């Protein structure tokens, strides 16, 4: 049994509790089906807990973290995740194209990609999106609050 599975089980029970609490506000007729699904999820999660207990008795308990996060680089991962989240916020403020250039250049510089590749990749992505989405599909991409 892996300790990380306790997190999975906790998450599933947590989701069920959240939806159950939210379902209290629903009309009785609208409650039945979601509660049936919750019951199924609780039953399956409990079945998994039983499997975990048996596995713990038979094979012992391991952390599981080393296996799941082997080679995990926290600095790189969280920086890229943060860049993507900042990108979404910037997109809302300064528009799609400016924020995309900033993400591409920032992310590629962070990952130490050679400069000529940064320029080519950024131009290729911008060109692809402009051609496919703006020209072909006619999608009006966000211009940003600052330029509205």
């Amino acid at each position, binding site marked *: 049994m892996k300790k990380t599975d306790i997190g999975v089980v906790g998450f599933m029970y947590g989701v069920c509790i959240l939806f159950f609490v939210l*379902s209290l506000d629903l009309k009785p007729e*609208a409650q039945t089906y979601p509660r049936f699904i919750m019951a199924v999820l609780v039953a399956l999660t409990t079945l*998994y807990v039983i499997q975990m207990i048996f596995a713990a008795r038979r094979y012992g308990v391991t952390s599981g973290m080393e296996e799941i996060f082997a080679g995990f680089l926290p600095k790189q991962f969280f920086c890229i995740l943060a860049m993507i989240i900042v990108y979404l916020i910037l997109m809302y403020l300064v528009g799609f194209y400016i924020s995309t250039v900033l993400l591409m250049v920032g992310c590629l510089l962070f990952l130490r990609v050679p400069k000529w590749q940064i320029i080519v*990749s950024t131009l290729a992505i911008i060109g692809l*999106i402009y051609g496919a989405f703006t020209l072909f599909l006619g999608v009006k991409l966000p211009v940003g609050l600052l330029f509205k």
Partner: protein
Amino acid sequence: MLETLFLMGQGFINALSPMNLLFAAAGTAIGIVIGCLPGLSAAMGVALLLPMTFTMAPETGLIVLGAIYCGAIFGGSISAILIHTPGTPASAATAIEGYQLTLRGKAGKALAVACFSSFCGGLLSCISLYFFAPLLAQLAMKFGSPEYFWLSVFGLTIIAGVSSKSMVKGLMSGAFGLLLSTIGMDPIEGAKRFMFGQASLYEGINTTCALIGLFSMSQVLILAETKIKERAKAAKFTDKIALTGSEIKRLTPTILRSWVIGNLIGILPGAGASIACFMGYNAARQFSKHKEEFGHGSIEGVAGPEAANNAVTGGSLIPMLTLGIPGESVTAVLMGGLIIQGLQPGPELFTRYAPMTYTFFAGFVLVQFFMLGIGLLGCRGFAQISRLSDAILIPSVAVLCVVGSFAIHKNFTDVVIMMIFGIIGYMVRKFGLNPAAIVLALILGPIGEKGLRRSLVLSGGSPAILFSTPVCWVLIGLCVFGILSPIFMNRVEQKSLEQAGGGDIVAPMED
């Protein structure tokens, strides 16, 4: 019969329109590029490019998605042969003999065999698509609300078992997806459910956003978490990318065997191209007259897996189009594309929308020819693309995920939903749950709910209606089969892998 022949002919006339041909060619090329990049998978490619098909006619959109699917399955063989890293798990067995041929200076020959076998496997799979799909659709016409309920349960039992090491975890993923599918308006009462004050959730969670997040954005996060690896330099080759008549004659029995294997695997829910390729390889080795060549670069060892994995494509479309049961991740994404076009998989595709469906079938046939042509002519170029660094893929795919999810309704909420599902997808994959089961539950959940609740309304609340017809019992039996089949399939895959000795080849990711 005559009507079907007429529809088939009409389908080819429609599919041969310049626009359809152009998109089929572009889709195939994009698919090959996605396939030959070890960081990307077929399901991810189809999910990522799904929004681009919105404004197209349904048949054109489906042809593009089918082309990406076929192209990606073939494309995986290019990096498997040249850099010993399969672009997709479907090409894992190809790397065994393909790379040996490359080491012997016969990379061109290996690529030609892969291309020709993929073409034959894909083309032959179209025969079963034309033959079996309408038959199964006729059966589905007899379905009522109780049958649709069981059908959705059947679909969930299948996908829940696929790709998960633990079957219970797979089923938990399915149930989690079903719970998420209850977000939005109640289909019978019209009451708002679990909308967290967001009016944009009125119609439920947008399936395309969920698909892009679960398959594509999660992959960005997976690529971002580890050290960026330098890819091996693709081997330069000077030999011709061509086959002689005698080689084609030698490969024919292998290709035919692999076609049968791939097709059956494709139709069988819960099995996919990654299983078919190893079974194709084993069959090729078992029946070969040149067994001594295996392990040192056998052209039959390349043809077997490549014909088998491409034969899966047509077969896997059959249960998806006729019953709405996708047997693997890629067809689940394709089904999402079908629903987005306003089409419901099932018998209607062969009655009301028959011209569209047969145009798609004809387009699927033409895609195989594009795959052969583009594959043979562009192999050298694709070989260079397969070296593209993950560092470039990370921001590029992230941008495409964002723009793709925004393009659906042109609103920012969809982008946020995609991002949330991206993080859920990442966690789900890390902790051994199954993203494909979640997606399928999001798609099948509303169908099952409507089927169940309508049945109960019809019967005055008695659940006996769910067991009232022989078809219901057949479907219940299939549900039991669906739950048990992953156990059998895992054994088959493990056995094939051991026999092929392909355990040392690192499959880049799940299908």
